[in-house]
């Protein structure tokens, strides 16, 4: 039966960061849409550029809709939250989606951490969780595009044993990839 092959739900857990602060790590839910929009609005222009590789005035509604409804077994979105007045703030997000419907064993990832939550190991934890989750979902390879100047992201990818590959005809971006065996 199809349902039986679905990976188990992710149980929310608390993560302790290097500076002693804690965040909650969990899968995204539909109700997170507003918090995602707010998190996007708090990001600097540079962070947005690193994530989307273009200037974005606002999140595209269709993409947001897809983002809060990951296709079970194919896509996954982690959010790291912290209590805030009236609910919680999203301070980090990491996701993977199926890279190509013909190559169903490869997923593409992206990761974003709020500026004032960087340098505390959160991105490392997010990416490590993403790798484990993708492997459990049956993916064999994880890949991502990174701007060549995005030094912190490249360092993180290397730390988690991603290989850095040139992108033909465009030296301004690199592909990071890792087998998930």
């Amino acid at each position: 039966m199809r349902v039986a092959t679905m990976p188990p739900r992710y149980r929310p857990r608390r993560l302790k960061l290097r500076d002693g602060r804690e965040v909650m790590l969990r899968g995204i839910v539909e109700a997170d849409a507003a918090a995602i929009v707010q998190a996007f609005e708090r990001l600097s222009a540079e962070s947005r550029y690193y994530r989307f590789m273009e200037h974005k005035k606002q999140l595209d509604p269709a993409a947001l809709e897809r983002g809060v409804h990951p296709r079970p077994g194919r896509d996954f979105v982690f959010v790291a939250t912290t209590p805030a007045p009236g609910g919680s703030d999203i301070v980090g997000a990491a996701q993977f989606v199926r890279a190509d419907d013909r190559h169903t064993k490869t997923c593409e990832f992206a990761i974003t951490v709020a500026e004032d939550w960087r340098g505390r190991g959160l991105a490392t934890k997010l990416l490590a969780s993403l790798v484990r989750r993708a492997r459990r979902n049956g993916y064999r390879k994880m890949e991502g595009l990174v701007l060549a100047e995005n030094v912190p992201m490249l360092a993180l990818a290397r730390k988690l044993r991603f290989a850095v590959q040139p992108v033909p005809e465009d030296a301004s971006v690199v592909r990071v990839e890792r087998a998930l065996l």
Partner: protein
Amino acid sequence: MNKIWLKNYPAGTPAEIDPDQFRSVPDFFEHVVRKFAAKPAFHNLGRTISYAELERLSRYFAGFLQALPGMAKGERVAIMAPNLLQYPVALFGILRASMTVVNVNPLYTPRELEHQLRDSGAKAIVIVENFASVLQQVLRNTPVQHVITTQVGDLLPTPKRWIVNLVIKKVKKIVPAWRIDGAIGFRAALARGAAASFKPVTVTHDDLAFLQYTGGTTGVAKGAMLTHRNILANVEQTGTWISGPFREATEIVIAPLPMYHIFCLTSTLAFVKWGSLIVLITNPRDLPAFVKELGKWKWSTMTGVNTLFNSLMNTPGFDRLDFSAVKVVVGGGAAVQKPVAERWQKVTGHCILEAYGLTEASPGVCANPPETPWNGAIGLPFSSTEVSIRDDAFNELPVWTDEGDLEKHTGELCARGPQVMKGYWNNPEETAKVLQDGWLKTGDIGHLDAEGYVTITDRKKDIILVSGFNVYPNEIESVVMTHQGVLECGAVGVPDQKSGEAVKVVIVRKDPNLTKEAVIEYCKPLLTGYKRPRYVEFRDALPKTPIGKILRRELRDGSATAPAPAPATPAPAPQA
């Protein structure tokens, strides 16, 4: 690593130079003006000033600056002017007053000027009246307290001064109306400085000579901190390379590139060291006038960029000029194209000496030996300069020996030497991206061969090179995105016959009635000429990966579109 390039150095070029011969640029300057006092130094618009006059005028200007309230050592002073005699006077005056020069492109729009003045914290600006209206629009948003305005003819003798200033204002009408309360005229400033008497200040090696702005990947320009030692080192490095045939106080140098640009700036200082006469070309875009000026001189040296060499050769009369005194012609900025180099050699009988540099290296890093025909390489590293090709993990890659897989020898060109900047002004994050263990990561991709030649094949930083000017797609996109009718956009460089590369912008419209012309028109007051999109393409969506990252290389090709009305050709300048 072994300096394998030394074996191919031009005769007489040392492996190492001494960057500490002089304490500072003013120390160097004072030495030169004493030595060559009676010799001609700069020529512009029919007037020549001697080294002694340059010393006197720059001393007055330094004295004037020192007497201004709040102007202490280390304050930044901007200069916004084309090549005029006022430029070297103001430049050396600022440096002698132990202040830092901030060179500003005079064609900047108010938006661009405001950023640079705010970022640098300039308290004073020297500006040619023609651009004063631009300053006026943003002045209150900047830290500038003292405005010194100059008219084009201000350093010409009477009555020529009156005539030139009158013609520019009333006949050519190229001075838009302006009003800045408290602005001081350049001539009045010199008079005040003469009365105030200049007090020499000790300037040290590590003090900042220039905050030299260069485009930034996040869309705004960053100020490269160039110290006195950086500049003196590069003056020596580039000077020893090309000066083999030079004789003191006899060379005539043609300077058509703007002095606000690092290439012209450092090379001018290198020529000053030889007591040369430097002929400042105010408007190299007026090609017939430029060719006429060339005809007046037995010139021996010129610096230029590909676009300029090409335009000169296409100007009637150029091929009939007398090239018998020519010793060195240096091409920098963007790559000099093979057909241009070959044609130049045919017409003038001399090779273009192709050099490579960037603002962050004051700027010279590599150059071909003099009289080397075009070979596709950027040349050998200068004296006291190390280069290294690094992979993404900063490991050094082996030199290319014409065997095996070139890809395995191809990486980012890194350079180390006394000319490498201290960092970006107030910007440790951007500094950390480009400086590592004393190495400057240039962002250019290439290889080093066994003969010591460096060849550039690609760029790591996303830069569009328009006639030698760096254009960052990010800045163009951030401007285009502010248009209400634009939903999404991406800017890329596309090949262009005239300017090497041109800016193309791909737009997803929010307003279906938005036209290409409207986009270009919108950019005019926000982006200086060379940055403006030349091609505009509309698409229904931008090409993206499944997770939503733009596939920039897929923006380059696409439906061939007719070029939009061409913006004014930018004044040629080298890469920085």
